């Protein structure tokens, strides 16, 4: 078993920018000399459905998937998705979650209920939960579109690599016009 491999699950709602976050993470781990696999979801589920991206790094990574009970960290862009993907968290794993709530269509239509106090209930199970209002922080940075970078910032703080390294990767990856906003968003997440 590849115990030296770290597993990061990024979950959210199609359109929230999980792909860019995973791409930036992948680059960071490659720069640190690790073997890396990132698995993405394209196509139909991107249209507002539940989406998941797997990021794995270590000495040698075989599978590109992260399975139930394997994630060291789950980064959730939305509360309900944190609950949905909770079974993938390893015992002792950490959940970093946006506090934003996005109602899925069955909830909008009144056919299902959005559970209340999702993150508190996960915390009560003994899971370490780092919660932040990434949408508000992104708006503070200048655009709601930077929600993904706020969450990346929060995760980066937890992962422990150098802050400048992350900022360098952001500068070379995002469109030049959005560098300032994304830097600010990253720091708001990093310092939250």
């Amino acid at each position, binding site marked *: 078993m590849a115990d030296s491999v770290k597993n990061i699950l990024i979950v959210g709602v199609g359109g929230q920018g999980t792909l860019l976050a995973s791409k930036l993470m992948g680059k960071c781990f490659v720069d640190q000399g690790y073997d*890396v696999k990132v698995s993405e979801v*394209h196509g*139909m589920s991107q249209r507002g459905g539940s989406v998941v991206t797997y990021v794995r790094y270590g000495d040698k990574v075989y599978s590109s998937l992260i*399975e139930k*009970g394997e994630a060291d960290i789950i980064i959730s862009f939305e509360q309900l998705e944190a609950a949905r993907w909770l079974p993938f968290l390893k*015992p002792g794993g950490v959940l970093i979650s946006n506090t934003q709530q996005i109602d899925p269509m069955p909830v909008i239509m009144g056919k299902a209920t959005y559970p209340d106090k999702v993150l508190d*209930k996960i915390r009560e199970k003994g899971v370490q939960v780092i919660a932040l209002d990434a949408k508000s922080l992104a708006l503070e940075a200048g655009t709601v579109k930077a929600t993904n970078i706020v969450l990346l910032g929060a995760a980066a703080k937890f992962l422990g690599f150098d802050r400048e390294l992350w900022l360098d990767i952001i500068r070379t990856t995002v469109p030049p016009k959005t560098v300032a906003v994304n830097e600010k968003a990253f720091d708001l997440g990093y310092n939250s």
Partner: protein
Amino acid sequence: MSKSLLLGNEAVARGIYESGATVVSAYPGTPSTEITENVVKYGEIYSEWAPNEKVAFEVAHGACLGGARSFCAMKHVGLNVAADPLYTASYIGVNGGMVCAVADDPGMHSSQNEQDSRHHAIASKVPMLEPCDSQECKDYTKLAYELSERFDTPALLRLSTRISHSRSLVELADRENRELKPYTKDPMKNVMMPAMARGAHVKVEKRTEALRRWAETEAVDLGVNTIEYNDKRIGIIAAGTCYTYAKEALGTRASYLKLGMVNPLPIQLIIDFARNVGQVYVIEELDDIIETHCRKHGIPVIGKLLFPLVGEFSQNTIREALLGEELPRQTFDEPIPPRPPVLCAGCPHRGLFYALKKYKLYVSGDIGCYTLGAQAPLAMIDSCVCMGASISGLHGFNTARGKEQAKKSVAVIGDSTFCHSGVTGLMDIAYNKGISTVIVLDNSITGMTGHQNNPANGYTISGDPTTAIDLEALAHALGIRRVVTVDPFDIEAVRRAVETELEAEEPSLIVSRRPCALLKSVKHKPSMRVNPDKCVGCKACLQVGCPALSHVPGKDGKTMAAIDPTQCVGCAVCAQACRFGAIEPTVKEEN
């Protein structure tokens, strides 16, 4: 050279580039689309979006006969469309090398079925390679060209969602510049009539045997088919993703025969491996192709006895089935509402479907974003089979049930899907005097696969302006006299057109035209808002199924509608669903 973190599909594109290929044709289809999108970045290669996979395959085969190294890409169901040229191109062979990538979708992340394209490789008798990561995606693309030219055959590259859409490290190399091979007229080789084809078939059977010997010998030397001995009590035979899952789950607790070539299979190698290990397990997603092949040769393997025929595998599939181990996990104790994909806020398809919802229609559906119109609350699609089937299927339905049915039914099909294979169905209706009503949802783009240009939108793959099919003129040319164009955001106009055309005793084409809301060129209006004095909380607006709409607590214990201004793009379809005029623009429009 440096290592780059590439998607499997990007790595295939790199392999095409490094191989010195010069002609690429494809039709978009998840999970294969990004191969061609990445090829566009290499100026040395001509690339194009073809109207469908059959055309793409024929373009690539024609280019290889012309002496170039050529390529085409498609999703698994696309290879059904291209199967006709594939099976005969197998007989003809190549001049320059030809590679066709086909991407399967185990688990159906974005597909209508879960077919296993290895069947096509076996049936058409062409070699098929299956990479397990991005490095192999690149290497096997290059190897496929070598095999194609050496054995005079098109070569298939089998991908899957997990391979195509996973990033891993790839070592890059330079492009090999190749001269165009000379073309010599050779009807015995290139013209498949019975007299020539009889000889060609004999050649193909000999070729398969030669490829099998290659798979048992040189493929082993190259590390394409490779054995790794660890604990010999368990022997695993696997290819592609399944090999990585097995390594992840079992590590050195098993020995492995990793197959990089999945057709033809290296029988002697499998026999040797089976002799040296205890129980052999075949781990393969979808069908039992390797397993059946082993059994045919008397090798007692276990496969589908333990592993399912359906869905995508993972390391847990193997842990649980083979070791009986389950990793500890935590669960959320309350029901979690599902989150199905939905039509985007401002999607032009929503207005069209909402307008149709008033009538009890049979709606013959097709493949694209608008298939999502099948989901509640719109729930507007009666059938969805394959690309283009909406139109021909409607003609069949109405022929079976008669003229009155034709007045209560429509087909809905996108612009790209119409060009792909809808136009032939419309030809059938006109030619055979049907009276069905067909609606083309023209959003100026191939949407679901992530915005590819198509023959109806006026731009090539690289964004250069080109000729655009005039859908209305095309319908006239086919013999459809009743052609009307509507704006799907204008619900009343859509309804007038639908009522009129359904009543008509001849076939009609309605073009519902408005560009996809996600296109950068589309200018959005300011968001709508709910007037709390007018909203009575009736929830009629929720019937449009827009993700920007919800209901929140209002006055007197009732609920009222709410609109998320960060999502709303002001399409005003919901405002037309409100009988109380409670949904209004945030900014008065200037007239």
